[in-house]
């Protein structure tokens, strides 16, 4: 379909501000009379605060006050996992205990050093399997796991059960969760190749470039909060509840955000923004809380580490018959996510196995907060399953491309333990496109070619994430100037999705892009609710709402024109910012004229009557404040049917040096299958950005903790080792399938998360290939692991351990 805007490149309005340094992040703001907060954080991994003596600090010049957990939780701290604003029961090093405000940061630091905190040390643990031992320490007060709606519980295995798992065997303990479909036994019986082994995925920090600094002040009973988030209205909606301020009294200002990757999508992951808000309320001054890189590590969250056992069976023709997956998740010090289940879901979706069983147990450790990180679960399992497919292909005499094509999901298929149908699935087309553009077949002759100590490895991998939601709200406005205003609460994460989804409204009204204003950046501009900007959902979710809101405006325009100029609504169409009769285009009026009449008429035309009943509370507040101020299109999106998937395929060629254990990526291509492409350059950015994350997942990034003292050892960029320019190929090629999804009005779905998974899958497969099919069963595969394998020495000092050099 030929579109006016969709599928064409444009410059999102925030880009010039990014290259000039003019756009503002939370820490760039100041306010008259602003004072500075610093945090006192826990120096020990698991403790109870018995006493806080701040008398000396509070007597110092320039100190305005402190905020403790007793201030923020006067009725006692919530007894559940999850981050707290401040706590007297720290379960990880770096957890905030109290905050102090002073005239400047130096005074605040000096005063904090004068505060005496008496801790009761409690047992701690950094590895989930250690905690499962009969005498293992529990990470939380009340157990090592948290059961939904029941509370803390203790989960222990026998020493033999832990030892057997560490020795590489299927766990025999009772799992906390079991999900299955199909006849597993029959499917394994029908298999002619079965792989079985254990694996680890290391957890690692998000390391967003902008630390989570925030500034807050109160004025006329309203709270003005400046912070970085992935979402805008969804985040504001949540943080209002955490702070305890009525939604209508919060103004959240968030023009730009220095990276998110899952951890800043929802307010529950960044409750620390409540610190400056509450301190400001207490001392009646604006408070800036600058966060350091070290603090960003400890409160900034991390990916769950997974310790697992996997058994996969393939039929003689390469069809995946069965997959049996058992995972112990590392939930860290504050509870985790559902990564392990998503890993099983991903295998079911991508390889359409006849039978799948997932068993899982989630255990806390006194390490960083775990939560959603780019493709949680789907992306950890990608580097584990891909080499298994390759070894099976070689064993069965099927090509490594064909084993993926044989098992591919396609339109009409279902996926996941819930057997949910896809809205559409063009993975076969993506596989073909990647293979053709990379020259996969032609390159096979280079496979495992050697040049001195160097050897070539080829890898192909697939990525998947569910990529779309619905049920949100959209608002567009127009004044007598005829400009279209898209009230946009999506949030500026850096993907430019907020801008790309606004194209859907411009498309409906056939508006030139330079006549469209995106109203965003602060919630007092009256923005509708949307889903948190995570899970690759934004494009699908918000094209639906903005398309719907623009359609509402279009219908109202035609009504007004028919009333004013005669004829029926059906007799009218739009072009060149005019509503006109189809039969005689000279009979019509400009958008500005229609809007002016709508404003004159009021009622439903200006949002003063007939609002959709199902609007979320947040949207109602916005709509009520906008009512009467302009010509309004407003829409509540009904729910869609099925699973809108985001798929990627990556091919790569590496040269691995067996003397050094290092490898260089010689060539890489990533292909997206995300329905209609809204914004090609934005899509390209998501593919190359995901590729860099995939390289980090496969080869570099991991949490390290000192197991003796529970102290984090990877708080900085060089210790956690995020990929740099030199870890990446000189050029990453990209492409996309670009076929429409029927459940979206413009055919679009999301892509941000799978773009990492397919790269990790392909790169790990290439490393495996270069090492003659050796399966490490790990992410990351580090240089020392490669060298140890080549030398024939043991790879693991502690098998299947998390937060140390293996896991």
């Amino acid at each position: 379909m030929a579109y006016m805007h969709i599928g064409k490149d444009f410059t999102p309005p925030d880009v010039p501000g990014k290259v000039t340094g003019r756009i503002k992040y939370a820490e760039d703001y100041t306010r008259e009379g602003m004072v500075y907060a610093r945090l006192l954080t826990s120096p020990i991994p698991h403790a109870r605060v018995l006493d806080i003596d701040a008398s000396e600090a509070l007597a110092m010049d320039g100190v305005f006050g402190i905020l403790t957990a007793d201030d923020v939780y006067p009725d006692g701290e919530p007894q559940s996992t999850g981050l707290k604003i401040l706590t007297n029961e720290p379960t990880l090093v770096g957890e905030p205990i109290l905050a102090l405000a002073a005239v400047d940061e130096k005074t605040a630091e000096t005063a904090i050093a004068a505060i005496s905190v008496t801790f009761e040390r409690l047992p701690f643990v950094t590895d989930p399997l250690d905690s499962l031992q009969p005498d293992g320490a529990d990470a939380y007060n009340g157990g090592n796991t948290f059961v939904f709606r029941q509370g803390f519980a203790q989960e222990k295995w026998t020493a033999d059960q832990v030892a057997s798992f560490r020795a590489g065997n299927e766990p025999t303990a009772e799992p906390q969760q079991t999900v299955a479909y199909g006849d597993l036994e029959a499917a394994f019986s029908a298999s002619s190749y079965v792989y079985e082994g254990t694996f680890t995925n290391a957890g690692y920090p998000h390391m967003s470039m902008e630390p989570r600094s925030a500034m807050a002040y109160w004025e006329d009973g309203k709270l003005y909060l400046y912070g970085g988030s992935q979402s805008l209205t969804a985040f504001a909606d949540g943080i209002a509840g955490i702070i305890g301020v009525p939604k209508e009294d919060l103004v959240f200002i968030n023009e730009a955000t220095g990276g998110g990757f899952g951890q800043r999508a929802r307010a529950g992951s960044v409750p620390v923004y409540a610190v400056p808000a509450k301190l400001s309320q207490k001392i009646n001054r604006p408070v800036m809380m600058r966060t350091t890189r070290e603090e960003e590590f400890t409160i900034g969250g991390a990916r769950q580490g997974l310790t697992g056992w996997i058994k996969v069976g393939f039929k003689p023709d390469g069809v995946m018959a069965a997959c049996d997956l058992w995972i112990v998740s590392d939930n860290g010090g504050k509870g985790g996510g559902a990564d392990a289940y998503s890993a099983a879901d991903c295998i079911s979706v991508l390889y359409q196995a006849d039978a799948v069983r997932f068993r899982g147990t989630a255990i806390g450790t006194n390490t960083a907060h775990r939560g959603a990180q780019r493709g949680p679960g789907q992306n950890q399992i990608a580097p584990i399953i891909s080499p298994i497919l390759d070894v099976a292909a070689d064993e069965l005499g099927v090509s490594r491309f064909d084993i993926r094509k044989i098992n591919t999901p396609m339109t009409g298929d279902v996926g996941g333990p819930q057997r949910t149908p896809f809205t559409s699935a063009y993975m076969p087309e993506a596989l073909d496109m990647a293979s053709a553009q990379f020259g996969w077949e032609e390159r096979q002759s280079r496979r495992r070619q050697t040049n001195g100590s160097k050897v070539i490895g080829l890898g192909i991998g697939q990525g998947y994430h569910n990529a779309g939601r619905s049920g949100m709200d959209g608002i567009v406005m127009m004044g007598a100037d005829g400009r279209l205003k898209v009230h946009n609460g999506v949030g500026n994460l850096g993907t430019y999705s907020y801008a790309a989804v606004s194209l859907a409204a411009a498309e409906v009204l056939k508006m030139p892009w330079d006549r469209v204003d995106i109203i965003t950046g602060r919630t007092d501009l009256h923005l509708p609710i949307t889903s948190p900007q995570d899970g690759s959902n934004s494009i699908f979710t918000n094209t639906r709402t903005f398309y719907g809101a623009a359609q509402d405006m279009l219908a109202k325009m035609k009504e007004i024109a028919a009333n004013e100029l005669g004829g029926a609504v059906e007799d009218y169409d739009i072009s060149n910012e005019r509503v006109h009769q189809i039969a005689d285009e000279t009979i019509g009026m400009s958008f500005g004229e229609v809007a002016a009449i709508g404003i004159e008429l009021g009622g439903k035309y200006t949002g003063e009557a007939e609002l959709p009943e199902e609007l979320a509370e947040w949207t109602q507040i916005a709509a009520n404040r906008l009512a009467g101020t302009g010509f309004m299109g407003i829409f509540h999106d009904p729910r869609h049917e099925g699973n809108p998937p985001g798929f990627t395929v990556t091919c790569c060629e590496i040269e691995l040096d067996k003397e050094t254990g290092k490898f260089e990526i010689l060539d890489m291509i990533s292909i997206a299958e995300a329905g209609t492409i809204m914004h090609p350059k934005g899509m390209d950015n998501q593919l190359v950005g995901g590729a860099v994350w995939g390289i980090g997942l496969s080869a570099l990034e991991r949490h390290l903790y000192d197991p003796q003292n529970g102290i984090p050892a990877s708080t900085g960029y060089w210790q956690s080792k995020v990929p740099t320019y030199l870890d990446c190929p000189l050029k990453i090629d990209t492409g996309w399938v670009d076929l429409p999804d029927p459940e979206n009005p413009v055919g679009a779905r999301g892509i941000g998360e799978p773009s990492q998974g397919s790269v990790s899958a392909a790169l790990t497969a290439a490393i495996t290939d270069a090492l003659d099919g050796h399966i490490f069963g790990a992410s990351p595969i580090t240089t020392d692991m490669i060298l140890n394998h080549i030398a024939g020495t043991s790879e693991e000092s502690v098998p299947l351990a998390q937060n140390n050099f293996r896991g």
Partner: protein
Amino acid sequence: MNPKLTRRRFIKGVIASGAAATTTAAWYSATGQEKPSGFVERLVRINVNGQVRNVDVEPQETLASTLRYKLGLTGTKLGCNRGECGACTVLVNDVPTYACSVLTHSFKNDRIETVEGLESANGDLHPVQQAFVEELSPQCGYCTPGQVMSAVGLLRENPNPTRDEARHALSGNICRCGSYDSYLDGVMRAVELIG
């Protein structure tokens, strides 16, 4: 571990003292209170973006602190404040320099350029900035000013770099969004724009 003894804490102390000079001076003078003992003010002249600026600088104040918190040049970002990421990159006599890791008082006779100083007098973007817009190089944008300054520094020294030379020149600038490819596209586009 004694947290007070780590290098991390030391650097935080340095930064905190940088912030102190502006805000403390303003606050104490506004409230009429005595400044506490140990409070030092030093007037330093530095050349930033072609303008000589007089600024109160504490002995251990970093250039990033001075630029951001005293001169209001918040385009220079702090990603790590400890020499790991490059978000704070500025040019000192055309050489890309981590502003978080150098002390302001050591640049009294030097030419400091920040991202705010690149646009021409009539508001035109510098070719590197223009190229980064055209290639949609930034994602979240937090590392972008540092990437821009490293690229400008490179092109002054080598107006015709290969993509690989550009990759090495910018390798001190981390981009957590992973936009390296798009930044390199931007640098190569800037080479064309400069002609």
